[in-house]
């Protein structure tokens, strides 16, 4: 079949536009350009002759309509001639459409867009803090109620979450801690060798692992593993209206969904931290053995002179606080899921970023606090 073609000719006061072939989307690019540049200078009337059109779709019909409207605006009379019966309904239908003028939303200047984003971001952050504080209050109230009436605690769910967030995280937390202990040992030995003080590597590993690395790494891994799972689980239930169903059945979503997760994580994270501490020390001991032939008993002897129980507790005391923050943010973002499945994914990502961010900020605050207290 013939490709789309357009012949332009003059006949007295008539400008004759003969459309030929297939006026469809495939060949429309060239037609579009020619029709836009159409020169009707010196004519009063325009006739579109469609007698030789083989096929036409909405693209062809739109080109005709748009060109016709432009010519009319310039004061010309426009008529269609020899319209094939098959395309008459299409032309009529497209002709009925009144001015679908494309007006994308006009973008304000860049500087305003920038200000707008900063403003929206600030308001969003403040609102997030405010909402999280409200959620904190609500969960605290429920926590007090459960403390007063312990039989309200869902024991089965709590144990299940304890297994998922604690027991199932042992391999990954253990491996990461072991490797970090090993890395610290290698770096320590390298730096201390010029001073002939390689053995103080043990102090470095011991203090770093117990005070900071053990808890911080565990918290970050748990935020990525369990915080995201909390958001995704609760968010999916929210999308399926399961959370609403709980409410209508007279069950409290906070009590059923949030408290078991919160309590389980507050038990699991200190235990995981203890495990991480041990594994990091083990990593350090292996490093010592490989690098400076330090036997395990020697390592332990040096360790006992280097660390005090306070250092262990300095790391440990942060664990329940971090667990609380991770569980709160995870559940909070899960309950904020609204509407589509797409928001589950978005808020899960958000929850992980926020909880890791908050964990690190709190860790910094703890450091300042401990330095003021002198521990």
């Amino acid at each position: 079949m013939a490709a789309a073609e357009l012949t332009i000719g003059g006949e007295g006061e008539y400008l004759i536009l003969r459309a030929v072939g297939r006026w469809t989307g495939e060949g429309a690019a060239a037609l579009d350009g020619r029709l836009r540049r159409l020169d009707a200078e010196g004519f009063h009337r325009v006739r579109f002759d469609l007698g030789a059109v083989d096929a036409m779709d909405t693209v062809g019909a739109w080109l005709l309509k748009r060109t016709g409207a432009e010519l009319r605006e310039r004061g010309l009379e426009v008529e269609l001639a020899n319209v094939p019966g098959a395309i008459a309904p299409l032309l009529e239908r497209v002709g009925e459409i009144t001015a679908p003028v494309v007006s994308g939303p006009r973008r304000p200047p860049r500087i305003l867009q920038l200000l707008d984003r900063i403003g929206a971001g600030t308001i969003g952050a403040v609102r997030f803090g405010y909402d999280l504080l409200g959620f904190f209050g609500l969960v605290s109230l429920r926590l007090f109620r459960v403390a007063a009436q312990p039989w309200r605690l869902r024991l089965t769910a709590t144990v299940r979450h304890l297994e998922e967030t604690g027991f199932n995280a042992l391999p990954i937390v253990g491996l990461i801690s072991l490797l970090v202990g090993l890395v610290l040992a290698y770096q320590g030995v390298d730096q201390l060798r010029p001073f002939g003080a390689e053995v103080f590597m043990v102090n470095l590993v011991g203090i770093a692992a117990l005070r900071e690395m053990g808890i911080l790494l565990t918290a970050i891994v748990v935020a990525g593993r369990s915080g995201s799972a909390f958001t995704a689980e609760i968010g999916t239930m929210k999308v399926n209206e399961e959370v609403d169903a709980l409410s209508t059945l007279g069950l409290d979503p906070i009590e059923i969904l949030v408290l078991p997760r919160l309590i389980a994580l507050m038990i699991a994270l200190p235990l995981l931290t203890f495990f991480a501490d041990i594994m990091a020390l083990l990593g350090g001991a292996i490093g010592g053995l490989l690098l400076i032939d330090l036997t395990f008993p020697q390592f332990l002897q040096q360790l006992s002179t280097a660390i005090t129980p306070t250092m262990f507790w300095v790391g440990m005391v942060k664990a329940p606080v971090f667990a609380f923050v991770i569980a709160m943010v995870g559940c909070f973002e899960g309950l904020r899921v609204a509407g589509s499945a797409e928001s589950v994914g978005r808020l899960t990502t958000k929850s992980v970023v926020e909880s890791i961010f908050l964990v690190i900020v709190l860790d910094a605050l703890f450091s300042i606090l401990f330095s003021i207290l002198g521990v």
Partner: protein
Amino acid sequence: MSLIAASEPREVVIRVRRLATRFGTQTIHDGLDLDVYRGEILGVVGGSGSGKSVLLRTIIGLNRPAAGLIELLGRDVAKLSERELMELQERWGVLFQNGALFSGLTVAENVEVPLKEHRHLPLTLTAELAALKVALVGLPPDAGAKYPAQLSGGMRKRAALARALALDPEILFLDEPTAGLDPIAAAGFDQLISSLRASLDLTVFMVTHDLDSLEAICDRIAVLIDRRVTVGTLSELVANPHPWIQEYFTGPRARAAFA
């Protein structure tokens, strides 16, 4: 249907022969034959789980049939190369049950996706055509700049229809287009399909549960029973003695719809 004289041999645009589909051990269709003629609106009905949507998905190539032949626009889809299949796919549009609009794009951008991918037209013309399609499905002009989440259910269906129509398809597949719409919006949608069929020269394959749609716009109805289809006009089906068909077309809800 009235546009085509009865004596003329009618062109078959969808031909299904001895189709079988299975999921694991469960057989959904077995020995299913179906012809859809150019220019008609075919309604597909059947009980829940009878495989209406599976049939639609199989015809458009989203499910692989276990056996059988599917010919679309005269081409056996199983024998086409990937490239030929892509070209053929431009000739039909699909409206999924929940619209399946890309949620990260505005309505106009959704319509522009297939245009940009397959037509390579000047950007202004592409934008004009998107606006035209948005207007064709009866959406207000400002709907084009909105995101799917900002639209009501009925408007979202129309927006999805605009995207399905972006490439001026010959066949339109609709999966429960009026499900979840109020009766007025549903009737409006039926009218829209019917008028677009006339002006854009469409063949419509419509899975539906809506008795009003069947009555108002469908030329023929295919009933999925016992893993096959029984096809006929509404009056033919009402006369069919099969108990499920009787229940479906002469039950209390049907009587209310066809009254």
